[in-house]
């Protein structure tokens, strides 16, 4: 189905590409949101993901999954954004304020005793590679092989990053979710 839409889009049918956007906008947005933990940035990055995908649609190899290819673009954009954040020394403070403000919204009050907020915050504090690996493995259910391919590292590195990431997360959350 994707392949038919891609071929139509390559012939200049923008409606066909819009159908692909409809299909993948949610998973792409939510993955980017988990990685960046900022709605505005996630919306921008998700939009840029689709625009970049359209621009380089001719480079897409039909033997690969379109979803995987989209994730690859989104992950690269997220990594660039994280690097950009690192160059802004005050970003951490801004993020903290935003998170603190968000904590007081009605949504958070009903968010399972605020566990969601604590988990999201703890995930954000993980090192970049561990965070991305953990998100892809836990929420997107990627194999180590797929993670290695997406992040451009060895499978063993992906495995080690996941082990470190999930152990660090468990340590950060203390007794949360534990029997």
């Amino acid at each position, binding site marked *: 189905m994707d392949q038919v839409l891609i071929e139509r889009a390559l012939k200049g049918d923008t409606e066909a590409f819009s159908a692909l*956007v409809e299909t993948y*906008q949610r998973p792409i947005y939510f993955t980017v949101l*988990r990685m960046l933990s900022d709605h505005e940035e996630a*919306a921008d990055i998700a939009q840029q993901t689709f625009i970049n995908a359209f621009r380089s649609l001719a480079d897409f190899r039909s033997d690969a999954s379109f979803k995987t290819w989209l994730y690859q673009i989104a992950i690269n954009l997220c990594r660039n954004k994280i690097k950009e954040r690192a160059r802004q020394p005050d970003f951490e403070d801004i993020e903290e304020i935003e998170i603190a403000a968000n904590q007081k919204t009605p949504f958070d009050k009903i968010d399972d005793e605020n566990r969601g907020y604590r*988990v999201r915050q703890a995930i954000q504090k993980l090192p970049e590679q561990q965070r991305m690996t953990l998100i892809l493995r836990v929420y997107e259910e990627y194999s180590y092989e797929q993670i290695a391919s997406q992040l451009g590292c060895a499978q063993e590195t992906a495995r080690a990053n996941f*082990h470190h990431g999930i152990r660090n997360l468990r340590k950060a959350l203390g007794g949360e*979710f534990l029997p």
Partner: protein
Amino acid sequence: MNCQEIRDKILDNLTGTDNPSDPKEISVHIASCADCHAEDIAWRKFSFGIKRVKAKDPGEAFFQDFSARVSQAVKLEQEQMDLARRPRRAARFRLPFFSPSFQMGMAAGCAVLMIAMALFFKNQEGFWMQSARPGETQLVSPIASPRVSPLKQAVSQANLSDSEAIAVLFDLMDDNEEEEISDHLMMAEDI
């Protein structure tokens, strides 16, 4: 496998994504080792707990707006790509020979070339001015000219060849004149 290896395997199998290479050995170990069994349960609960945490849903309106914005951006991209693909006849005629900048460049280049050639040939002997070294005819003619006119007349009347005419000329000259011509020729050699 020891306990540490089993605990690593528990983490690998947590999401159920990768098939464990040796599931029987792991399950046998967990069943027989209380610590590893407790660790397996703890990790499963933890994994279930964090997986249950959903990202905040921005709502259906956001996605409708998102989709519309992306579609608009994609249409613009498509228009730009179509424009880039279209052959531009006007532009083809404008480049390169008809462009004002190209013509100006050519004019400037020609001017520079002409100046360079003028400077080069200025120093070349005999181009801008007569050669400083006079030819043999020039050297001989002042002495020989008084006799050339009658000689020409004699040659035309006697139907003589050039060499015969020159021989006649030398016969007509006296010794002083021949010596003077030889001096002139030697001076020319020195120059």
